[in-house]
């Protein structure tokens, strides 16, 4: 099958049991996306599928033919780190770093959802103009951090949100 990853088309021969996460890590050598739980419970495997954040561990790779996958490896541009990556560095948004690629890809998707005006469970009838701390916490709840770097993650995302 063909899989389009970070704008590049890749040819792959896969058992149809292979998840998107295993296709990326084991077959394409893209080991940035992490396997935490393999059951949709931690967010370490978050990638963008057709521009939307999703858990690669619960997606079968065969269902991704003709779709666009974006991983942490493709996030930085020629001019350097993506603003979310930069903010994680500046605000100590990680400790061991295992959850970080998933946190960052999730945050990129989350910021885009907020831009589109999507409400969250803590949004009232009117969406706040900017991302408040409760909004960030709720919208990022699909990403767990065993090191508890949440304080830095929240600071990083508050910073990015205020700049965009």
């Amino acid at each position, binding site marked *: 099958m063909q899989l389009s990853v970070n704008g590049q088309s890749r040819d792959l021969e896969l058992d149809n049991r292979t998840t998107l996460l295993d296709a990326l890590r084991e077959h394409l050598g893209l080991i940035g996306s992490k396997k935490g739980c393999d059951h*949709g419970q931690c967010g370490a495997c978050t990638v963008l599928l057709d521009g939307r954040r999703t858990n690669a561990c*619960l997606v079968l790779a065969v269902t991704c033919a003709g779709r666009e996958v974006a991983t942490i490896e493709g996030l930085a541009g020629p001019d350097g780190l993506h603003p979310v990556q930069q903010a994680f560095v500046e605000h100590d948004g990680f400790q061991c770093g295992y959850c970080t690629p998933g946190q960052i890809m999730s945050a990129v*998707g989350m910021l885009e959802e907020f831009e589109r*005006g999507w*409400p969250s469970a803590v949004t009232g009838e009117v969406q706040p103009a900017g991302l408040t701390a409760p909004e960030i916490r709720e919208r990022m*709840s*699909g990403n767990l951090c065993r090191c508890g770097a949440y304080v830095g993650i929240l600071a990083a995302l508050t910073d990015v949100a205020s700049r965009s």
Partner: protein
Amino acid sequence: MKPFRYARPGGVAEAVRSGAEQPGSRFLAGGTNLVDLMKLGVERPDLVVDVGGLGLDEIVVDSGGGLRIGANVRNSDLAVHPAVRRELPMLSQALLSGASGQLRNQATAAGNLLQRTRCVYFQDVSKPCNKREPGSGCPARQGDHRNLAVLGGSAACIATHPSDFAVALAAADAEVAVTGPAGERTLRLDELYLLPGEHPERETSLAPGDLITAIVVPPLPFGTTSAYRKVRDRASYAFAVASVAAAIDVTDGVVRDVRIALGAVAPKPWRAHRAEDALRGLEPTASAFRAAVEAELSVAEPLPDNAFKLPLTANVVVSVLSDLTGASR
């Protein structure tokens, strides 16, 4: 994971045919429940029929405010739809309270309704479970049943249905449109879901090949005065321990009509008809709400570790209805 054949049908008729021909087949939508259970060995389909390419992803709002939700509409798209938020806030709130941003982007409307129980024994193939292996027994009664059913269970099984969305749909009198080998039909949610009785392995009235194509929500004029409230063990990204979807119409100081559905307390979303009947015609006061929900819960059969769900559910019902009507608690 057990090997399987993978099919990607070009249309609904072909999907139905594939599903009906192969007894051990499963439709694959977002995969967030099916793939998970396949990894655990709980689901072992011989054939996986990917319905993701069938379209079925539109939300149509009719002039009266009713909705037709395509089976493949993503949970996130449905939750943020302006008409859904306006006409039936409880539906949007239920969806937004479920799972995570990532999962809601992947999960579909039909897949959400047909997700399986989170009972720990059901998910662990090394344990007996009547639902997974009929006749093998139910360890939950003596074991871990803190999050299992207090209503509608049986000696064979006390699993709860885990969906938030389905609870709000039950309150809204929703139906599912089904295309099967014998043609099309619609089922009310209480016809779709079966109580376990002696056959907990049969959870719905769907037969092999029956494909849900859409969810139909009739207009609910007082749906604008509705809410979904969920209690869970952590603030977000957790299944409900108890939940309530409610809509209420108070005219001339009395409850003219009301809809109440309870989540996480039964093998299916539990429509509280008894409580609704008790409330119609009464003044909307906290004590009336409490008496009504207590009437509903009077038939409950709690076990030692899930009896807490009764006062919890009663409190949530009283608080939701009080907030919707402005009654003081």
